[in-house]
């Protein structure tokens, strides 16, 4: 950069610089101009907006939040009726966005890691299959994939009646054009003990893990922590389940008239969004994982083999920890992308934040400025929170240098 100390061009004999050529003075002028321009633009925009809103008779301010919403939402996590307020509708949409984002991130990460490893496999068929998956899915727009799943796959499934003709009236698992029907777990008295048992098992897993690590450092003896933990988590709640007299029961969906009743319904919109988001993002995560593993120098593998470490342990103890350092920063931005892309839900009618708040609420109140700014700020906040969390996680695996 030209802002170096010393004698800039244009200095006269006395060593003094004319104000025109002094980088500091010019910088101040530039910045002052920028501030004036920004303020002028904001002022013009705001005054225009105030005049336009007044002319159109649109109220401003956030008072509308406490008004009655008056519309229904297809999927609600917190109680909501059309008598609820706009504020509650906003939270319903926000929660729906977060649910689909969290579940989508979970599946995308799993599929992405599997496909990324498959692309590095020496198995010809597996490797080619993974390559075709990645190249196809990441070169087709996500919106197109969502619409494809929703309109071309899920909505031409048989209707509940047709589906029931093949499977029988009461089924544990049914997929038709009304959604995916799974058995619902009904908790009766005493069932909370089962969850306590699960919590105890998980805590025990951690305690055993710490103990085993300490023992290995002290004595060198190893202990099968994972298998023990898994056994605890499965056996303990099951035991409590039978001891307390089986307080959990399953309710199956059954066909009554034209529709299915009971059971646990997953809406087709949600399924399409989840399928599209996780398969699409997984193709990007797969490439990140592949690049991360390839970035670990081959010498590391050779060094591990020279020490007599077996291939499986080599990848677990040597390759993966080093690859994670390369993988995590771009993985973070994929998680953010998935969260932001979940806003495409509006195209297939899944009631997420954009669809409920930026769509229905905006149309009903007409308060575009408030509604769209809030929507944007929410996504901004979600992005900043995700990246803050991932930065923390990243610093915990980062290379500690002298």
């Amino acid at each position, binding site marked *: 950069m030209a802002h170096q100390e010393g004698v800039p061009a244009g200095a006269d004999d006395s060593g003094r610089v004319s104000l025109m050529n002094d980088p500091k003075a010019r910088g101040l002028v530039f910045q002052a101009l920028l501030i004036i321009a920004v303020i002028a633009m904001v002022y013009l925009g705001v005054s225009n*907006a105030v005049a336009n809103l007044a002319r159109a008779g649109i109220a401003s301010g956030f008072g509308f939040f406490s008004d009655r919403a008056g519309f229904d939402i297809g999927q609600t996590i917190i109680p909501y009726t059309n008598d609820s307020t706009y504020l509650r509708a906003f939270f319903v949409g926000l929660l729906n966005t977060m649910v689909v984002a969290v579940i989508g991130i979970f599946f995308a990460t799993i599929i992405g890691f599997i496909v990324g490893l498959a692309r590095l496999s020496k198995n010809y068929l597996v490797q080619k299959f993974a390559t075709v998956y990645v190249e196809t899915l990441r070169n087709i*727009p996500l919106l197109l994939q969502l619409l494809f799943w929703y309109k071309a796959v899920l909505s031409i499934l048989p209707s509940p009646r047709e589906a029931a003709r093949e499977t029988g009236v009461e089924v544990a698992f049914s997929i038709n054009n009304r959604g995916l029907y799974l058995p619902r777990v009904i908790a009766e008295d005493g069932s909370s003990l089962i969850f306590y048992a699960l919590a105890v098992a998980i805590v025990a897993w951690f305690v055993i893990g710490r103990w085993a690590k300490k023992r290995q450092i002290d004595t060198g003896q190893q202990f099968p922590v994972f298998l023990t933990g898994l056994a605890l988590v499965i056996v303990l709640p099951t035991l409590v389940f039978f001891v307390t007299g089986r307080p959990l029961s399953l309710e199956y969906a059954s066909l009554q008239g034209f529709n299915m009743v009971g059971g646990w319904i997953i809406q087709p919109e949600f399924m399409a969004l989840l399928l599209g988001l996780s398969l699409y993002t997984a193709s990007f995560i797969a490439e990140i994982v592949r690049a991360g593993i390839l970035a670990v120098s081959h010498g590391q593998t050779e060094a591990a083999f020279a020490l007599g470490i077996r291939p499986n342990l080599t990848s677990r103890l040597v390759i993966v920890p080093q690859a994670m350092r390369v993988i995590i920063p771009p993985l973070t931005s994929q998680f953010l992308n998935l969260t932001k892309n979940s806003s495409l839900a509006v195209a297939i009618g899944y009631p997420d934040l954009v669809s409920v708040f930026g769509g229905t609420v905006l149309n009903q109140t007409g308060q575009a400025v408030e509604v769209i700014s809030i929507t944007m700020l929410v996504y901004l906040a979600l992005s900043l929170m995700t990246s803050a969390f991932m930065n923390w996680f990243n610093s915990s695996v980062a290379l500690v240098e002298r």
Partner: protein
Amino acid sequence: MDNNSKSIAYVRTQESPTMAPPVSTGGVVGWLKENLFATPRDTVLTILTFLFLLWIVPPVVDWAFISAVWVGESREDCLAPGTGACWAFVEAKFGQFMYGRYPLEERWRVNLSGLLLIAGLVPIAIPSVPYKRENALYLLVAFPILAFILLTGQLGLEPVETPLWGGLLVTLVVAIVGIVVSFPLGILLALGRRSEMPIVKMFCIIFIEFWRGVPLITVLFMSSVMLPLFLPDGVSFDKLLRALIGVALFSSAYMAEVIRGGLQAIPKGQYEAANAMALTFWQGTRLVIMPQALKLVIPGIVNTFIGLFKDTSLVLIIGLFDLLGIVQQNMTDPNWISPATPATGFVFAAFVFFIFCFSMSRYSAYMERRLDTGHKR
């Protein structure tokens, strides 16, 4: 020699014939053993993948080719049970998918603009062709003006309103305007973010992080619903222009980050050398820094463009008919409505998007290999 052969009878006097390699290491069997059945785990994986392919490939091939309807006049031809893809639908609507409702007799103007674009793109994509600077100027300045005159109908040409535009034309217009505008804006923002002037730097950081933190769909909503409110009474932009403003602002933030990556990769010595030659900041940037930085980030720019190209499909949500939008609109045409139509239309649109994005990503990978002068194992 003769003497030796008599005295030591068991020593060979000539080489024994070469034996064929073991069956298990060569030929088809060897390949199979090495690539598909190397370990028990590999064998299981191979069998599982093969079964999966067997489950998925034959129905897809059957749907797309064998039971597909290739010629037809209306939905009647695609209604028979067990019919696959209704390609007749794509054939009948192909003109719409490419040009939207652009008047038939004026479509040569779209084609000519496409040719002008190709004439600029092909030489700039081939590294050995000279005059890159002139070529880039043509693409960034001359071509947009020419295309604007041709497409909207200036200078005595029949005017064509933008609501008539559609299909691949709109997709390409949005993507290309986005990239052409975001390029200079992105350079300015990237320089601003590295500037030593605190207010300029802060302004650039806020601008970049804001646009990168929000989804494109909210940006499009903003530019289509909120932007008109901020304009003085009587001033109004058409829908396409509003979408273009949103897309350009959005992509300039991404472009700025790509270019910043290039700027960071330039060693400090280059900046100091530019200063030592008494070049001003802008001279140094233009003659020393940018040529090196931009060359480094060509793959990144292409990748941004791929992302932008895919994201153009979002404009259908604010009511523009890009390729995906027009395909979706035509699916509801009563003359063609059938169970096979949606899938057919989406697969066609996916194919077009795939062709564009895949070739661009191949090009980006090729440039990456060309520019990669690092160590290889």
